[in-house]
């Protein structure tokens, strides 16, 4: 009896203690990325490093928040990705998956997240369908998308006289979406698309595709690809003398890591759109220094920044809700809370899952303009958040029509 009383007292004391302090929150995050192939530099281990930083920063002064993290490689195969996602949600009890720099895999995992009622934050993948025709109530699209890229780089190229286009497109969900969105922008701004050719994902030899681009006599060769494919196609375009012949290249999706890999002599003059660049302000520079402790000699991409910001906002929402909310509830909460983090500043998540923030149109510096390692870009324009992304009504997302 005495023991029981003391037990009860202890329980009450504990209950009072937790109620008095904050609620205990335990979460598990899965970082799924391309760890070994063509997108490993834009996401991959850099995303894992960013996730670790986000978790460390958030839990530093909050002993009531416990965060576990696992990471895995989706090998750019949709079946591997959905298999891994199933296993993480079912067996490893992961609450949220983040990153996935491959739209094909991201679309598959978004399905799994919806089915299991968990959460998926897309930082790496680009297809605007993720917050458009294939949106769902368990997916948030954080960093950027193909509509925003087309609206940035595509528009700028047409406005500066590049009115005839030829597309070199990676043959899967991402490339198709980027080509479609850019095509629309080009036509809308009075340009013309002369042709397009599709290349397999992760190609080494672009010669036949580049020759077709050359033969088309289009003023602009639009590269609707990413990562290793972009690096290879730009390098090989230089060897074929495409730019020397008077055609210009539009890298529709170029990351800081791609510019580092290409080197400024090859990449100079490229116009590109990003939502985050490490050298824009002091906060970003300080964050980059810390990131580089784990990734020495590399420069973070906007995807890495998106992973950090996405996890930060997720943990904020989780802490404010307490308990163990399901995927739809936490997604709702994240949409209703304004976002605020050191990398993207203040922003919001729309009903369709699209995160809204400013975008920047950059130009790659000439080698002589670059003063220190990583000094890649000069800013040509800032596109305000309200204009940077596809208007809510045009995406065709079912979540929007409902309300």
């Amino acid at each position, binding site marked *: 009896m005495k023991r029981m009383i003391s037990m009860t007292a202890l329980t009450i004391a504990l209950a009072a203690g937790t109620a008095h302090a904050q609620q205990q929150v335990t979460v598990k995050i899965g970082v799924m990325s391309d760890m070994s192939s063509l997108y490993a530099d834009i996401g991959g281990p850099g995303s894992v490093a960013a996730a670790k930083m986000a978790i460390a920063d958030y839990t530093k002064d909050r002993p009531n928040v416990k965060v576990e993290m696992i990471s895995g490689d989706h090998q750019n195969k949709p079946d591997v990705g*959905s*298999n891994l996602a199933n296993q993480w949600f079912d067996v490893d009890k992961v609450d949220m998956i983040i990153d996935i720099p491959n739209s094909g895999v991201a679309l598959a995992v978004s399905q799994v997240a919806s089915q299991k009622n968990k959460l998926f934050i897309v930082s790496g993948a680009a297809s605007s369908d993720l917050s458009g025709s294939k949106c769902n109530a368990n997916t948030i699209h954080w960093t950027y998308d193909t509509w925003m890229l087309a609206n940035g780089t595509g528009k700028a190229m047409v406005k500066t006289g590049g009115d005839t286009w030829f597309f070199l497109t990676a043959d899967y969900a991402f490339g198709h979406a980027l080509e479609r969105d850019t095509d629309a922008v080009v036509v809308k701004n009075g340009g013309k698309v002369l042709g397009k050719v599709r290349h*397999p994902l992760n190609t080494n030899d672009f010669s036949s595709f580049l020759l077709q681009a050359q033969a088309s006599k289009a003023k602009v060769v639009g590269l609707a690809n990413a990562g290793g494919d972009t690096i290879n196609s730009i390098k090989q375009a230089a060897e074929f003398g495409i730019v020397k012949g008077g055609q210009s290249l539009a890298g529709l999706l170029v990351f800081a890591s791609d510019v580092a890999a290409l080197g400024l002599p090859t990449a100079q003059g490229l116009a590109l759109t990003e939502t985050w660049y490490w050298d824009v302000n002091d906060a970003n520079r300080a964050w980059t220094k810390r990131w580089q402790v784990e990734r020495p000699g590399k420069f973070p991409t906007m995807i890495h920044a998106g992973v950090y910001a996405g996890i930060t906002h997720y943990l904020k929402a989780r802490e404010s809700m307490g308990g163990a909310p399901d995927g739809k509830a936490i997604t709702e909460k994240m949409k209703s809370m304004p976002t605020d983090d050191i990398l993207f500043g203040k922003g919001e998540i729309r009903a369709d899952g699209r995160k809204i923030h400013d975008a920047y149109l950059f130009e790659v510096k000439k080698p002589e303009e670059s003063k220190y390692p990583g000094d890649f870009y000069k800013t040509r324009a800032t596109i305000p958040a309200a204009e940077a992304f596809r208007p809510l009504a045009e995406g065709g997302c079912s979540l929007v029509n409902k309300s």
Partner: protein
Amino acid sequence: METPRATANTPSKTGERIAFAVMVAALIAAPFFAYPLFLMQALCFALFACAFNLLIGYGGLLSFGHALYFGWASYLAAHSAKVWGFTPELAILTGAATAAVFGLVTGALAIRRQGIYFAMITLALAQMMFFFALQMKFTGGEDGIQAVPRGKLFGLFDLTSHMAMYPVVAVFFLAGFLIIHRVINSPFGEVLKAIRENEPRAISLGYKTERYKLVAFVLSATLAGMAGATKAIVFQIASLTDVYWTMSGEVILMTLVGGLGTLFGPVVGAITIIAMQTYLNAFEQWVTVIQGTIFVACVLLFRRGIVGELARALKIKL
């Protein structure tokens, strides 16, 4: 025909029966201990390996293109379930039927040659069909066919949960397994083994060996297709991984590790390889290296495979 069958009956039949009983018991108990999705994957590959083993283990034909039947059946099953709205069992049968047709066409071409040439022809045809899968519209290229509904069995039972799906997969696996068992223990199977041992002698005895080989090929392709189609419904995705040549290689590996020409070998081999891929996932790209090492060890140390060596040690047929 009567005498050898009679002598083979007594000790070996009991061994086989015990092994079969153990397998069925394990099938029933497993979902309560292990992750059902992993088990379903293992069963799909076990059936695939059994189908492959029918051809090489009993017909002596090494096909290097079985991914063609596995992968294309998964595409057709996924497409019929998603676009045509077939129920899962019909979708799986559609997949198997597709594989049968492909098996008939490619088999008729391939069995005209022996040995390495046979393997090369099957590989070439499989790669050709891989590129069709990559380029055709309905397959979705790199993205595959995603969001395939598991649907309702016979239009009645919802298969969305893993525990509901598992018995269906187990039944399809057992059906395939029993078909193979029946085939290899039939007069047809005896002739097939005779062709494997000495084809000219089989011809001289008056058997039209090409017909036997073709039937074995089509059977093997159909069952491989059934495995692929089931996998597509279970994972709700059909993708390029399943038609790529590495898949043809993987099934060879499973069969060899388990034990070529044994009834239970491919099952054990498939479970071993899938377990490695699942539980060693944390090692990322090292998984293939580990797999390779195990394969080398298998070839050097136990050539008959796990089940083959076990059967030899126990002096029974498995």
